[in-house]
């Protein structure tokens, strides 16, 4: 059954049009939708307890009982992938949301106040930008302790500069537009201008950046949990599953790495495609 057929049967006309014109986008949206659902419902979908050892043989190949095979501790990989989806998808989402709130906040403050506030913020952002993410991550662990919180906060901070610079430029450009002056002349209050006009204007460009950031966050979190700074075992998480399963690839038991890796790639790809389209739309609107 092709995408177009699915589309004709179930979704409204607008989506059908999108499907015809841009099937890639539709596939990406569906993929992301499915993955988000899995992230929410993973524990209920999982056929086994993801942390129960020896439900199958060690490093078992895919079979009917274990469609993705079993890992080096005899755990069901499918269950781990499903349950791990929550942390794997939501942690980068939180990173992106946090860094966006912080970054956009700083950028708007800089663009709005100008002068020394802007200079100070620019400097702060430069400094954060210059410090390797790992240093920030280690620092966050000492402050917030182990677990998902520390790396999420660390990455959120590490990503501030990217989003802040982008937004700063866009906000400055937007603020220079005559309609902002028009609003001032009308007596509209500053917070109202900021939140009713400036922030909405930033949405497309910020959204596009968020999509790109999501992919990076997912990959970076994987690396961090590999270093033992992230999600604590045995709670499953795609990144650490890939990392731990690495050795198996050469030893002929690649399932433990390969399946979560496929999910990572699909998720990042889907979000990336969605983000690219949002950028396109944003650019079209700008014209």
């Amino acid at each position, binding site marked *: 059954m092709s995408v177009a057929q699915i589309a004709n049967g179930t979704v409204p006309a607008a989506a059908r049009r999108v499907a015809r014109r841009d099937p890639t986008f539709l596939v990406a949206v569906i993929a992301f939708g499915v993955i988000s659902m899995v992230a929410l419902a993973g524990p209920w979908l999982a056929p086994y307890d993801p942390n129960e050892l020896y439900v199958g043989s060690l490093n078992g190949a895919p079979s009917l009982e274990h469609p993705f095979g079993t890992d080096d501790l005899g755990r069901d990989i499918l269950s781990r992938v499903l349950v791990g989806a929550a942390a794997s998808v939501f942690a980068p989402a939180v990173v992106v949301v946090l860094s966006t709130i912080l970054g956009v906040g700083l950028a708007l403050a800089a663009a709005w106040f100008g002068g020394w506030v802007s200079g100070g913020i*620019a*400097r702060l*952002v*430069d*400094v954060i*930008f*210059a*410090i*390797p*993410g*790992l*240093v*920030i991550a*280690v*620092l966050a*662990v*000492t402050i917030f302790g182990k677990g998902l919180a520390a790396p999420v906060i660390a990455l959120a901070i590490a990503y501030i500069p990217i989003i802040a*610079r982008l937004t*700063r*430029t866009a906000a400055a450009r937007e603020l220079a537009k005559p309609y902002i002056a028009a609003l001032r002349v009308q007596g509209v209050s500053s917070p109202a201008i900021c939140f009713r006009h400036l922030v909405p204007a930033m949405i497309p460009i910020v959204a596009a950046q968020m999509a*790109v950031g999501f*992919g990076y966050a997912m*990959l970076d979190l*994987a*690396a961090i949990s*590999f*270093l033992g700074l992230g999600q604590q075992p045995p709670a499953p998480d795609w990144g650490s599953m*890939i*990392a731990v399963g*690495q050795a198996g*690839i*050469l030893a002929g038991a690649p399932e433990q*790495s390969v399946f979560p*890796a496929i999910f*990572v*790639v*699909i998720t*990042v*790809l889907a979000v*990336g*495609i969605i983000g*690219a389209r949002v950028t396109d739309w944003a650019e079209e609107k700008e014209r």
Partner: protein
Amino acid sequence: MNALTRTVLGRLGGMLLTLILASMVIYSAVLLTGDPIAALAGGAKPTPELVEQIRAEYHLDDPVWSRYWQWLTGAIQGDFGRSFVYKTPVVSLVGPRFGITLQLVLLTVLLILVFGVGSGILAATRGRVVDRTIAAMTSLGMALPTFVVAILLIWIFAKSLGWFPVYGEGEGVWDRLWHLVLPAISLAVLFIAYISRVTRGSLVAQLHSEHVDTARVRGIPRRRIFGVHVFRNASPQILAIAGTTIAGLFAASAIAEVAFGLGGIGSLLVQAAARADLPVVQIVSLLLVTIFVVLNAVADLISSIIDPSSVGGGRTS
């Protein structure tokens, strides 16, 4: 003082300030996160006397700012301290490894520029089919973690085909290059995809700009339009992002270095962090920060030389 000198001096000042602030953050962050006593004791169980001795020797009881000051002034005079673990001057640890990282990064940069910029140019100029294909490839490229690429490369090219070595840095120019090929590819994939997109984006923006229309209607040959009006105008933007990317490569190379058993500064940082070898962590972090900041500034500067209208334009962040 002409505009360029002023721009250069202004950037230099900003750069130094960023560096100093970043070095403070790093210095205190590293102190916070490591346990110098454990590292200094070198794996043994230290007696209270030994702890006292270490504390005194390394001024561990001084306030942080005074230690920072000692450290900074020392570093400026070329004294980067001694490794807690190796007991040798940090310089002699970092020196040889830096060469390896540098070579890896240079090769990676070459790959990124050739394939990233190259495919970006193709995507922008060779019609819809090529554009779509490259877009699909870059989407995939941006979704592949470096360590996954590394495993795949080892699996395919080293293990199955046996074309490349998988560990170590080799000897002699060609052998070394040979050893660095796979690590460089694994490191480059993500950035090739990224730079390809950036290149395509800025080229397309230029291709649709009005001054290119002018050149077209004047019958200027295609090649010249592309070279002189499109590519050159797009290059400041490409360069700015490439600069940041390349600057970041020095830190990002850690993953490739570990995966391919290369002794560069990235893997040194990881190791030193694991052993709480604070002087090494501090210096390597500072080195990475310095490289990052300096390369960014250089890229900025080149951009502004290419683009005279931005001279003196100050910071664009």
